[in-house]
């Protein structure tokens, strides 16, 4: 598990990963125009990261995103969404859509909706990956890991 799988799997995974991540980002960013959204995109991206974890192993994956990093990003995403709400709050009401509405069917439209989608995307990606990483690490509970924090 630490070492990852065979070269064939790794090469295929590398190819597929790019597509998965682009697809995930597209789902999230165009969530207000087409089907999809922050949650769908985030879940897809988390699947991609899990594929990376399975194919390349924990050590290799940790160079890109570790468990600590994942939980940090999760907090950042959650805070980002709350901040969007609070920005609206200062402008009138909790969650008031303060940004200009933009031109319909373009990426930069619908005001805060796009940014909410981005925040949720970050949060869900990191969160679901963190859960899986912890579950995967827990199986190998015999050997000590560095994640342990008192």
């Amino acid at each position, binding site marked *: 598990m630490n070492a990852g799988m065979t070269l064939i799997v790794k090469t295929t995974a590398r190819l597929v990963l790019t597509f998965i991540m682009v697809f995930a980002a597209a789902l999230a960013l165009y969530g207000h125009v087409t089907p999809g959204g922050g949650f769908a995109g985030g879940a897809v991206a988390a699947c991609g990261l899990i594929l990376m974890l399975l194919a390349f192993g924990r050590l290799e994956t940790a160079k890109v995103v570790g468990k600590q990093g994942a*939980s*940090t990003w999760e*907090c*950042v995403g*959650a*805070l980002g969404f*709350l901040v969007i*709400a*609070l920005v*609206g*709050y200062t402008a*009138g*009401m*909790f*969650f*008031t*859509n303060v940004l200009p509405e933009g031109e319909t069917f373009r990426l930069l439209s619908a005001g805060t909706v796009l940014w909410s989608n981005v925040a949720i995307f970050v949060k869900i990606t990191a969160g679901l990956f963190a859960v899986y990483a912890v579950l995967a690490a827990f199986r190998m509970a015999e050997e000590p890991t560095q994640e342990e*924090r*008192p």
Partner: protein
Amino acid sequence: MDLTLAQLLPLFVAVPLLAAFLIPLVRRVHEQAAEGLSLVAGVALLVLCVQVWGRPAGTCHMGGWQPPFGINLILDGLSKLMVILIAVVSACVIVYALTYMKRYTARGPFYSLLMLMIAGMNGVVLSGDLFNLYVFLEIAAISSYALVAFGTQEEELEAAFKYLVLGGVASSLILFGIALLYSLTGTLNLAHMARILAGGEPNRLVFFVAALFLGGFGLKAALVPFHAWLPDAHPSAPAPISAMLSGLLIKALGVYALVRLFYNVLPLEGASTALIALGILSMVIGVFLAVGQWDFKRLLAYHSISQMGYVLLGIGLGTPLGLAGGLFHLVNHGVFKSLLFLCSGSVERSTGTRNLKELGGLWKPMPVTSATCSVASLSISGVPPFNGFWSKLIIIIATAQAATQLGPVAYVLAAVTVLVSFMTLVSFVKVQKYALFGALPERLARVREASTAMCLSLVLLAVLCIGLGVGSFWALPKLVHPARDAARDRVGYMERVLPAPEIERMVLAGGPADE
């Protein structure tokens, strides 16, 4: 700081949420940051309560969308009572946890989950939207599942799993009911729903939904046929969490939601009988199961079931007096049961055991814990002048008065209520006798008093017990009667959120209606 009510209400949820999201981040930087942030959030909630204290009821439209199109928060007497209870008890619990939780690792997640639980409960009691209520109920419930398992010992894991499964089923039943109600009414806003249901003809589906809600929220409130999880879950959690669960969670998630839905939204005639039956059943079975217990926290957990029976009986009666008694008992139980659980935590932490047979003579080494424990025991047993006495008295009088509607059965019910109260007294005399009086066992010779912070929160809660008892003539009209009036005023609830002309203009015409 001169904020309008609409500006204050979102903060009740936003402040603890902000703390919860920040805790994992700042804890990387500073070890004590989690404790500090939690304290700040607890104090901020108290300040918010002071801010809303004297204000009239009002609503807040999230995102600026008019209900029923957006979500609205509503603060009326009933929500105000709950919000204040939540803020006071959770502030005491946070202070207590400061030293109590030093035994555990991972205190960052602990405080984060505690803050999420508070945010969830505040969200539930303030929400004016059925689905939103469900979402926040899930936040509070999920954090409580995790907190029950927090010690990761066998018993805690088992209890948490049982709690999670039953709680999950309850949530699903509630959501199923929400789906049916949405289909029936085409709206999720509680006030709008109430208006539509009140206008329509009697409907079998409403009874079905009511049954689903009674099962779902009844499971959350641990009423007797659905109580199986509580005696495992409440004792297994760390003491501050036991106090939160017994003192607040079963009330905010269970009883509050039942009152709000059955009194303000669903037009039902037969609900009161069902509530009375469940109340009596919980009261009697809970106390019988409690009498035989030797585990301190488990005994308290069974008494929680029994005391919730009182609350439900009072609420089920539906008379102004009964409802006031039920709600007052809800507040009192929140105070004295969390105090009792915190006391049991102090005892367990100092002596290392919860078994009453192994304890004894704790008055000498632990005077503060013992004194506060006695106060709480007297309160729960209904000894004058402590707070439990007044609320139980009101409930008993109300039950006897209900003879006009229920017939002579009411006198039997009143007698049962008195009997249960007596058995509670017996049970707590046992606690006093075995834990606090008698000879100090050899093994416990080196026992010391709990830390200052723990004692502080114990004393605060004990003062509240006495204060609510002696000052009940003040607390009733100031706190409980507005809540009772809000619960009984179905039309007022609708009018507050959706004034009648407004709704005709928006919903029937379907035109735009911004602000």
